[in-house]
């Protein structure tokens, strides 16, 4: 029987495996036919997917416009650097802060809704931000976006590292990802996270238990946007640019697919798996056919129809079958 109140393991095997795999990636990634930059991109999308899953998986709130906050993080990172002369920390902070402010405003307009109405409103807001990014030339650079974003050095006060190489960037993003994972793993097992799950399962009862359900839904959106904005900042840092496509409906859809295929609804770790699966599919299938997204879309539909618990669910079932004796 499981513990009545679940508790996060201090060093869960999934975290150790993820770190081991990603920390050694620069050593083997070219040997398996991939290129170093893909690992950076995978980790950035992992972070985005984790932040997104706080909302979709844990709060049960379907946002289909989350790409907007990823884009806002990317643009804010670039603008802080290009217009205000910010260095790494300042630009990252700007990316998170911009996504948080935008998220707080949007969440204030939608947190009294749920289900399909919630989803439609998030799409609408997402499209508004995307449109602004295209049309507000003076600030966003229009359809070209922000070019020439630099990779400032990582300055820890006592030492400095250049982030010019993808390898250096790889380790910076890895550290950030691990921090995000550990904070979110704590959060979902904290009183806040458990009450959020209660609001997801039965909002009326949670309200009758004296909880401010609106505030939980609002704050979950804002926290999710903070993580998403951080991921977006790293994306601008890695790509050395920010462009409208980042905040389009496509990228909102990609993160949904990553989370669902990976199994975010049943596992904290699902989004990590899903992000890696999606980007590897993009590159490996994409090498054979331009229409890779069609094939991936079919896989996505098969998962949603036949195994809504995703890869994490398959893994869990498989592990159960191998160890029938354990509960």
């Amino acid at each position: 029987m499981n513990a009545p109140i679940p508790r996060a393991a201090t060093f869960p095997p999934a975290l150790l495996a993820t770190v081991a795999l990603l920390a050694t990636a620069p050593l083997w990634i070219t040997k398996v036919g991939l290129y170093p930059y893909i690992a950076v991109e995978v980790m950035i999308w992992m972070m985005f997917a984790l932040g997104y899953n706080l909302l979709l998986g844990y709060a049960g709130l379907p946002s289909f416009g989350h790409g907007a906050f990823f884009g806002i993080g990317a643009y804010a990172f670039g603008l802080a650097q290009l217009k205000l002369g910010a260095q790494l920390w300042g630009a990252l902070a700007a990316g998170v802060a911009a996504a948080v402010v935008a998220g707080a405003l949007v969440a204030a307009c939608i947190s009294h809704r749920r289900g399909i109405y919630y989803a439609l409103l998030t799409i609408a807001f997402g499209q508004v931000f995307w449109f602004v990014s295209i049309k507000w030339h003076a600030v966003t650079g229009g359809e070209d976006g922000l070019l020439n974003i630099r990779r400032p050095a990582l300055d820890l006060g006592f030492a400095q590292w250049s982030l010019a190489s993808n390898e250096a960037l790889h380790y910076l993003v890895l550290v950030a990802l691990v921090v995000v994972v550990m904070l979110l793993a704590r959060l979902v097992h904290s009183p806040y996270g458990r009450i959020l799950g209660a609001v997801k399962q039965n909002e009326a009862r949670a309200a009758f238990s004296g909880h401010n359900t609106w505030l939980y839904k609002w704050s979950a959106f804002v926290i999710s946007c903070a993580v998403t904005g951080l991921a977006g900042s790293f994306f601008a840092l890695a790509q050395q640019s920010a462009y409208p496509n980042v905040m389009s409906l496509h990228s909102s859809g990609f993160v949904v697919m990553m989370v669902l295929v990976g199994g975010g609804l049943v596992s904290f770790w699902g989004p990590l798996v899903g992000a890696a699966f999606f980007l590897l599919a993009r590159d490996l299938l994409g090498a054979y056919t331009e229409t890779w997204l069609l094939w991936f879309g079919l896989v996505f539909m098969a998962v949603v129809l036949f195994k809504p618990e995703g890869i994490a669910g398959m893994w869990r079932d498989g592990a159960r079958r191998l160890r029938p004796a354990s509960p």
Partner: protein
Amino acid sequence: MSAFFSAEGLAKRFGDRLVLQDVTFALTEGEVHGIIGPNGAGKTTCFHVLTGKHKPDAGRVMFRGQDITGLEPRAIARLGIARSFQLMNLFDDYSALENAMIATRPLRAVGFDTWRPAADARAAIDRAGAALEEVGLGTKMAVKAGSLSYGDRRALEIAVALAADPQMLFLDEPTAGLGAEGIDRLAGLVRKLKGRITMLVIEHDMRFLLGLADRVSVVHWGQVIARGTPAELRADPWVRRSGMAA
């Protein structure tokens, strides 16, 4: 003397249908008060108005001298009023213990703590555990609510309400769907809580209510048509004619 809890002249209209009109009753502290009536009499609407789900069109609801008419459910809960739900309304993915824990005051106090594990919230867990023991679910604390039997789920409903340490408890058709054995278990529980918690019980099982309540209000066509102790009601010609006093 002002009543512990009272409803004064409540009226509620849905479209052109008058569901409640001039509903008035008062409870003293520690009393078990029954509201009884046939299906469609307005019992559940009355319940929703009292617990904040609907706002009344007229009248007011007073709790310990405070006007709570039209307050949000959350605010009413925080004043110390807990309710059970007629429809199964639990957090099915959570264990029985966690269901009760979510309702406790100590958990509410740390609700925005995103750092410490919920499994370390000792005060909340202890309170929830005691509530489960009280309703006889002490051995099923780790069972997911969705996997409990019907009778156990009803008991958990009440444990969740108790875990909030209410001064007043509203039970909405607590016997619905229960067999004779389940009803006996429930009656035993209500008897145990009697005197400690003021209770308002909505029921259409007359025998259950007449055996437990200090006083009963009979609601029909959205109005209180009779009230009194169970003994008085058994003798009331209106109630006898309605066929409710089985």
